[in-house]
């Protein structure tokens, strides 16, 4: 596979974020890594069915829906990942006996189905590649990271109280090279894919961020995992800065969501970072220090 030409291996694709798009939901956010974009909507706190009612906290219901085809077991796995990442961050006990309903809809992800030519005639069959790639596993890492970010921002949009911010990014190793925010094609050609989620906030990671989620598949050395994690940490800090800017604009005088498209340099460091919870509304309450 050819090296990246459009951006450096450690650069993100253009990010985009817009909030409060949906009229019927209490909060909604569309978050994109380049052409992978996910819409998240939150309804709640609202009435909960008795069977699912929890006495001391809100019930978190998550639905993940694919762009193409019907949801299957892998979407249930995505829901479980989101639940275990979000549940510790949301102050669920503030909303006992109620329902927080989070729905995620992938809005776009480019299909790789017919990106290369192939033929059924025996003469033209290509031999299997010598290096083992993740070709047989549908690409999902960038989408998974976008889902995590969209969910978090929908919670912010809906004014649901959280301990801190959750930011995720995908990383892949392609032909030994570490690539941040891989495209679908890169995910297919990767030897390993990783999604890292970091939380930011007082007691939950500070301004540096704390790794609260790892989902890695493929074949990779321990050092590669750490290398990827470091890159992801820097990248999530940059994404958070972007989110912060975008939210500030939204709640500022202009009101309209910014047509955000920035390419943050991966070298962007923590100096400029401030406590992320202070942004947005007052409901982003902090736990006691």
């Amino acid at each position, binding site marked *: 596979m050819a090296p990246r030409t459009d951006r450096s291996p450690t650069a993100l694709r253009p990010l985009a974020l817009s909030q409060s798009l949906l009229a019927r939901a209490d909060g909604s956010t569309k978050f994109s890594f380049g052409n992978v974009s996910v819409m998240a909507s939150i309804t709640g706190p609202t009435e909960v069915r008795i069977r699912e009612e929890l006495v001391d906290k809100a019930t978190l219901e998550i639905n993940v829906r694919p762009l193409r085809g019907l949801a*299957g*077991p*892998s979407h*249930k*796995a995505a*829901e*479980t*990942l989101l639940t*275990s*990442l979000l*549940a*510790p961050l949301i102050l669920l006990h503030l909303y006992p006996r109620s329902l927080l309903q989070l729905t995620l809809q992938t809005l776009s992800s480019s299909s790789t*189905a017919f990106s290369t030519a*192939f033929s*059924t*005639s*025996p003469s033209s*069959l*290509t*031999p*299997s590649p010598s290096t*083992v790639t*993740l*070709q*047989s*596993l549908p690409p999902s890492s960038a989408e998974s990271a976008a889902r995590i970010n969209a969910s978090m921002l929908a919670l912010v949009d809906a004014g649901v109280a959280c301990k801190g911010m959750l930011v995720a990014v995908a990383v892949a190793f392609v032909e030994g090279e570490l690539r941040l925010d891989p495209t679908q094609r890169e995910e297919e050609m990767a030897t*390993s894919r990783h999604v890292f*989620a970091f*939380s930011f906030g007082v007691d939950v*990671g500070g301004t*540096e961020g*704390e*790794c*609260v*989620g*790892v*989902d*890695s*598949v*493929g*074949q*990779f*050395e*321990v050092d590669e*995992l*750490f290398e990827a*994690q470091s890159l992801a940490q820097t990248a999530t800090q940059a994404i958070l800065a972007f989110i912060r800017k975008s939210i500030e604009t939204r709640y500022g005088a202009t009101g309209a969501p910014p047509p955000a498209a920035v390419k943050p340099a991966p070298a962007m460091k923590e100096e400029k970072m401030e406590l992320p919870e202070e942004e947005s509304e007052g409901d982003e309450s902090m736990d006691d220090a």
Partner: protein
Amino acid sequence: MAQSTTASTEAPAGTSALTPALFKRLHPRPYLDRFLQEGVRPDGRPLGADAGEAVWRDASVNIGSISTAPSSALIRLGNTTLVCGITLEIAPPDITTPNQGFIVPNVDLPALCSPLFRPGPPSDEAQVLSTRLRDILIASNVLPLASLIIEPAKAAFVVYLDVVCLNFDGGILDAAVLACVGALKNLRLPKATWDPDTGATLCEPISEKAQGESIPLNPLPLSVTFGIFNGHLLPDPTLFESTLCTSHITIVVSSTTSKLLHVYQAGAPLFSAGADGVEGGGREQLKACIALARSRAKGLLEILA
């Protein structure tokens, strides 16, 4: 901590006999915490890095016990018991991958195995396990899909790996991976020929004479799960421990190479970053987990052999 003192003050005021079973039911967290403070786990396993092999539950494998399946493996991991049975079918390869057969893993958590599950279609938990099992088996490439081809673009084997849980006591993914690997190791594919005239595939029954072809496997994936409770690392947690843990980490290592095949962790951070104050403190502990996982994998590999 406040809760554990509660339990002690409650006992004299409360029932005349607060039996361990009752204590466990009423105050599961303090119950587990008391054990861990004593450096021991509720099932008697020691706690701590230098405890060696004793931190794991006993694992055993019984290969080929189901004669209706071309290959099968029964795994016991402590009380957790599950069976992986293989069935074979033949299908035309996907048009985009004419050189590949199929692996279809599914995990069933029937109502039989635990009061947590109801009869009916697969629970969410079963679906999540199926997904993660598939990801591990495919990403590790343990069974090269190309080896399942009978005739390129025309016919290939479909290997169904059905994992049925019989007793659910934590560590299901670890046990399921072990069961699948055990069953795959033992699998022999019958000799099959694709007939261009009829478009059908005929197989030779496996017998004394025609033993079929065993498939050369790539390095085997071996899965090891840890739970985190109150800052304690609990290797191979039981169901009771799992439900109380704030976070889990699963590490899948390769049997013969130094590569990792899958790392999964979600929830509260593995180790609080402030604990040792050093950047990368959690990292050292993750390394320790990986080292533990590798030593466990060696043990698991021995019982598979």
